[in-house]
């Protein structure tokens, strides 16, 4: 029974199938929202309100010709999309949606899974860097260096912002952090500043406007993905969608009290909370223009990092007060 349960967990919910369906839905939601914010229609014709458009795009890309540049590092170039998708899908399993017991650590919910999740979310950045670097295209190379330059900017504020709620909750386990804030909802307000910082950093991690610098199309064409086509590009796009879901689920767990209520209610909670986070991310995307890579670094270190440290201080003070 436990094996079946694990297999279901891995392949159906919240494993691969659910990830695929839900991340494409989130892409549709993001696209539609972005379009409506811009007074456009967005995807319209595939499925009801264009809801199947991302899936159609995925299958269209899967059937397209797959070109590997002659001078690229072929093994690396081809393996990276699969690796990336595997990494973010693994990260998805650590989100405490279902099948975990608060009292008993398990393989998918253990003390320190927050750190592992953050680590797994850092890896895609390196995947993008390696993808750009191994393409040996000039635009890809510039994109790759931009990916890394940006990483130095947003990674530290993100870690600080996500870890401060954990310090307050006195646990490195996602499920316990969520449970802690569910018991004391007013403590969520303490982390408001951290939530804002984390939202901005996640926006940068997901390379969405104003941080879509590594693949800024008007500057460096496709950036890191310039040479990717066909199946590999489809996998990369799916990877970005999954990353969006994972990152917003992480924020929802840490800052918004997680997804309580067992199977169905937990699912509902999960969907509502991630969609709220994605809504804010889309709004940021629609409101801003792309900034330069040097501006990202200076902005992160001048504003985000000090504010994150301030958040940490607040958390420590509050912790001293309530204990």
């Amino acid at each position, binding site marked *: 029974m436990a094996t079946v349960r694990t297999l279901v967990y891995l392949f159906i919910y919240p494993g691969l199938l659910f990830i695929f369906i839900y991340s494409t839905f989130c892409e549709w939601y993001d696209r539609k929202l972005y379009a409506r914010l811009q007074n456009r229609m967005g995807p319209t014709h595939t499925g009801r309100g264009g809801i199947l458009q991302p899936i159609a795009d995925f299958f269209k890309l899967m059937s397209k010709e797959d070109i590997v540049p002659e001078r690229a590092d072929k093994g690396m170039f081809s393996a990276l999309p699969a690796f990336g998708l595997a990494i973010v899908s693994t990260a998805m399993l650590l989100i405490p949606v279902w099948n975990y017991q608060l009292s008993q650590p398990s393989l998918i919910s253990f003390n320190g899974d927050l750190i592992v999740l953050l680590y797994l979310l850092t890896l895609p950045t390196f995947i993008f860097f390696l993808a750009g670097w191994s393409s040996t295209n000039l635009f890809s190379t510039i994109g790759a260096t931009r990916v890394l330059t940006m990483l130095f900017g947003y990674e530290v504020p993100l870690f600080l912002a996500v870890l401060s709620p954990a310090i307050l909750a006195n646990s490195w386990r996602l499920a316990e952090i969520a449970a802690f804030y569910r018991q004391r909802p007013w403590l969520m307000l303490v982390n408001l500043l951290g939530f804002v910082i984390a939202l901005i950093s996640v926006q940068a991690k997901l390379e969405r406007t104003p941080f879509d610098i590594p693949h800024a199309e008007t*500057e460096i064409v496709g950036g890191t993905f310039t040479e990717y086509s066909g199946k590999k590009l489809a996998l990369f796009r799916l990877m970005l969608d999954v990353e969006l879901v994972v990152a917003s689920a992480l924020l929802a767990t840490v800052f918004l009290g997680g997804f309580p209520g067992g199977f169905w209610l937990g699912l509902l909670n999960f969907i509502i909370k991630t969609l709220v986070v994605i809504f804010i991310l889309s709004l940021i995307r629609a409101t801003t*223009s792309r900034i*330069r890579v040097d501006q990202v670094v200076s902005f992160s270190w001048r504003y985000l990092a000090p504010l994150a440290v301030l958040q940490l201080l607040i958390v420590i003070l509050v912790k001293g007060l309530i204990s």
Partner: protein
Amino acid sequence: MNFQIPIGPQHPALKEPIGLRITVDGEIIREADLRLGYNHRGIEKLAESKTWIQNIYLMERICGICSHSHTTCYVQGVEKLMEIQAPKRGLYIRTLVAELERIHSHLLWLGVAGHEAGFDSFFMYVWRDREIVMDILEIISGNRVHYAINTIGGVRRDLDELQVKNILDSLSVLRKRSEYYLNLGTTEPSFVARLAGVGYLSKEDALALCAVGPTLRASGVPMDVRKDDPYAVYDEVPFEVCTADTGDVLGRTVVRIKELFQSYNIIEYLLKNLPTGPIAVRAPRRPKSNEVVSRYEAPRGENIHYIKSNGTEKPERLKVRAPTLGNYAATIKMLKNGFIADVPLIFAAIDPCICCAERAVAIVDARTGQEKIVSTSSLKQLKQNVSPNKERKREVVWPL
């Protein structure tokens, strides 16, 4: 490590083919080189085999965005050659369309600037509101892009009361929206961070490199053909030449948005003082043999047509100096020591129309095959000879 990146001839930031070879050191541009000639269409040669009437439509197709600029510039020259004077109402309608075109071109530019800076929402909203002016143009002329309203000796379509009311109504909407965009474009932090201080061009450089149009005016030089050498009815219409002192992309944006308001005022004035009478006079089929230089302030800057006739149905020579050509030299200067990220913005800030500018700079004598470069002073002399009746309003210091 220095390496060269090719921007263009095919690149998402460029809507038309042009080659920009950029030598970068990391993210910083050390050297820029501009390569033209991907879009040469032989328009000047073709013009020599078409009649004066047919050439109006050919000139219109030099550029899609400033189609009215090129026809007006051409038609003014031909009218001078044929020694006819277009009636007042015709000139008013011509100027009206010219200003509507300026609005549409500047709004288009504003949207493109947003897009190049990755501010897609701004782009979408500006272009949505640009539809208003496109619709006005469609109602007036019967088409959205190639208005074909000019003819030799006047304009082809008249305005009626309903249209006048329609235009005035739409203008008030546009005016409100433009105020909003001026406010937004200069306050949204991420957008301003991208525009301010980018692509700096000093006043001296702008003059020395012969920049034209909003690029020049954003460097603080109040040069505008509409004021300096008024054509059509600009000597009757009150308006101001908008300038900015910053000399960067933000300045160019502000100049263009300010010009939008000037255009709204001009259009309101034109519609309220629209004279009655005919809209066109009959033109002869053949002008006398003569030559003429016609100047026009296109949305992108000064547009010059040189027309030579030999008394036949077809022009002997037609030379077009599109405004973008005047701005290329300044662009190279602006690009140097900037960031790669700013290339599309700086390049877009001159509002390049590449196919407009695609023609040889050196003057080649068709009969002898001799190449010669005409100096600016002799061109100036030529201008004095050809249009001595118009005196310059303001004494401008010639840089060379």
